[in-house]
């Protein structure tokens, strides 16, 4: 377990590097891709958080969607600004996760995965069929992120990609710091213990049900936050965006980077998966096939992810199991 001080230093360095990026990248298109990297890295962090507690969720995209829809509806129907809608949507998503999680988390393992797949499907069906959510066309003309005005000092308008980049960087760090707080507190150790050996953890007095539920709720709230950003950044959302395939990509981002690296892994994974195909101009048709092959090869030859290459060298080659 890394010490909290190392974590703080690491996060500071990372923030500094990421904050410098807009000085180098000028193309709005690439800025847009980087924004997507940030948002997807947030979702991948959520996956890793739940994985620590031994929960493999295939329903992350559904909670991302709940966050997006709730935020959009709050903004459109109740005229709330983004800055109100965003935290509220995270809280509401967390509350929904609490209600659903009470039942789901009881049955970990295959049962949980199946239930989250089904949950994801029900969510997409609900978005598509309930009139409140606008049917298959989804919700359009969601107001963009409201500008911040601080009288006499400055005002920020979220029109340019660069401003949106800093916003997603802020949200990413918020979630990263939030999750890291859990990891370095007692909870993190309990989650790790549950993920490694639930029976043993239980015999040492860890209430595995409660800790798993906590992971599910916290992770879902994080996903809801990402969803809120997505809705206001794009301005339009549609139900099929939030299906199980999206969750599979979220898994890929996390695993490619390495699930042992809860903050850096998702960034690296999402960065590679989103930018490399664009740069190499891989045809859209064969991209999923290459991704699929890559996944299988990754699992067979580098199950701990790309970042494990670096850390393994440091620790004198230990067999990866």
């Amino acid at each position, binding site marked *: 377990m890394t010490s909290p001080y190392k974590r703080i230093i690491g996060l500071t360095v990372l923030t500094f590097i990421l904050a410098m990026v807009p000085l180098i990248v000028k193309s709005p298109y690439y800025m847009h891709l980087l924004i997507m990297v940030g948002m997807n890295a947030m979702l991948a962090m959520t996956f890793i958080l739940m994985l620590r507690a031994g929960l*493999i969720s295939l329903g992350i995209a559904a909670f991302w969607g709940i966050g997006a829809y709730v935020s959009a509806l709050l903004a459109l129907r109740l005229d709330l600004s983004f800055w109100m809608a965003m935290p509220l949507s995270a809280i509401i998503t967390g509350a929904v996760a609490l209600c659903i999680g009470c039942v789901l988390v009881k*049955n970990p393992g295959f049962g949980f995965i199946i239930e989250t797949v089904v949950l994801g*499907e029900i969510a997409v069906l609900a978005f598509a*069929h309930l009139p409140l959510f606008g049917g298959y066309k989804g919700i359009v003309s969601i107001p963009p992120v409201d500008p911040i005005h601080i009288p006499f000092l400055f005002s920020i308008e979220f029109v340019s990609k660069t401003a949106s980049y800093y916003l997603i960087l802020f949200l990413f760090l918020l979630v990263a710091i939030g999750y890291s707080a859990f990891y370095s507190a007692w909870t993190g150790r309990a989650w790790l213990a549950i993920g490694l050996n639930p029976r043993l953890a239980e015999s040492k007095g860890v209430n595995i049900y409660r800790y798993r539920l906590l992971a599910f709720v916290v992770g879902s709230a994080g996903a809801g936050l990402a969803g809120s950003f997505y809705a206001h950044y794009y301005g339009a959302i549609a139900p099929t965006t939030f299906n199980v395939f999206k969750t599979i990509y979220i898994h890929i981002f996390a695993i490619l980077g390495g699930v042992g690296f809860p903050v850096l892994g998702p960034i690296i994974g999402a960065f590679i998966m989103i930018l490399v195909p664009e740069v190499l101009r891989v045809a859209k048709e*064969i991209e*999923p096939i290459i*991704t*699929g092959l890559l996944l299988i090869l990754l699992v067979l030859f580098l199950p701990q992810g790309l970042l494990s290459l670096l850390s393994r060298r440091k620790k004198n080659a230990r067999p990866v199991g």
Partner: protein
Amino acid sequence: MLSLAGQLIIEGLGIGLVYVLLAAGLVLILNIPRVFFIAYGQFYMLGAYILWGGTVLFKLPFFISLILSILATGILGAISYRLIFYYIQNVRDNFLPIIVAAMGLMMIMQQGALLVFGTSSHGMQSEFPGLIEFGDIIVSVEKLVLIILALLVTGILYVLLQKTKIGRAMRAVSFRADISSLQGINPTLVYMVTMGVGCALSGFAGGIMAPVYAVSPDMGGIILTVLLVIMLGGMGSMLGAVLGGLILGLTLSFGHYFIGADLAQIALFLVIGIILFFKPGGLLGNPGEDLSS
């Protein structure tokens, strides 16, 4: 009134039995090699495409194409075990890697089908036209053939699992792989056979459904319904898969008639929700039984 009920029951049996087969195959794969095989739906799609290709493109007889579907999907399933999952299975904490590898396989097969066959769906003419009347109940021959074939395969599967040596080995391995390997059972072979049988069931289901629905690359989405059936029946139970499939089929057919397709979907979720509320592990499953550990 009675004839209407009979009609709807036959309709429900038709869909239900297909789901029984699909769920039974996936239950085998989940319980014996313990692979969360999310690419399962793509084998259903592959089976359907092979049948469509065989009968429409190469003008083969229906049953020859069906056998080809079964063989191709079964062999591909067994090979996929030997080439991929075999290497991950004995690794510690193999739960996530197995799912991820299955996702990879799913993406390859899904996109491969899109590239080869295109996005459009292909309908095909019914191989068994005509209607049969039993008193007031009118049934299409096609549906009857489907029901008979599905029942036949269910019977074969039962005999395979209960009466044959490989079936006994499969059950032994699902119980304790380490001990059964001491008794001269080769677990790798058993796992390969199980994957083969499971995938062949999926391919067979795809084959017999191909004339009923149009064949398209997104057929693999059926995995969601199959998982629903398994959730309903209970994770580790074959009989649960049978019950779950039949409940699903009947709910859908009665629902379609009385409240329409959309509401039938919602009714289905309601039925499942109610059952799971009272039996959290599914109808015949044990709640809290963790197959992953």
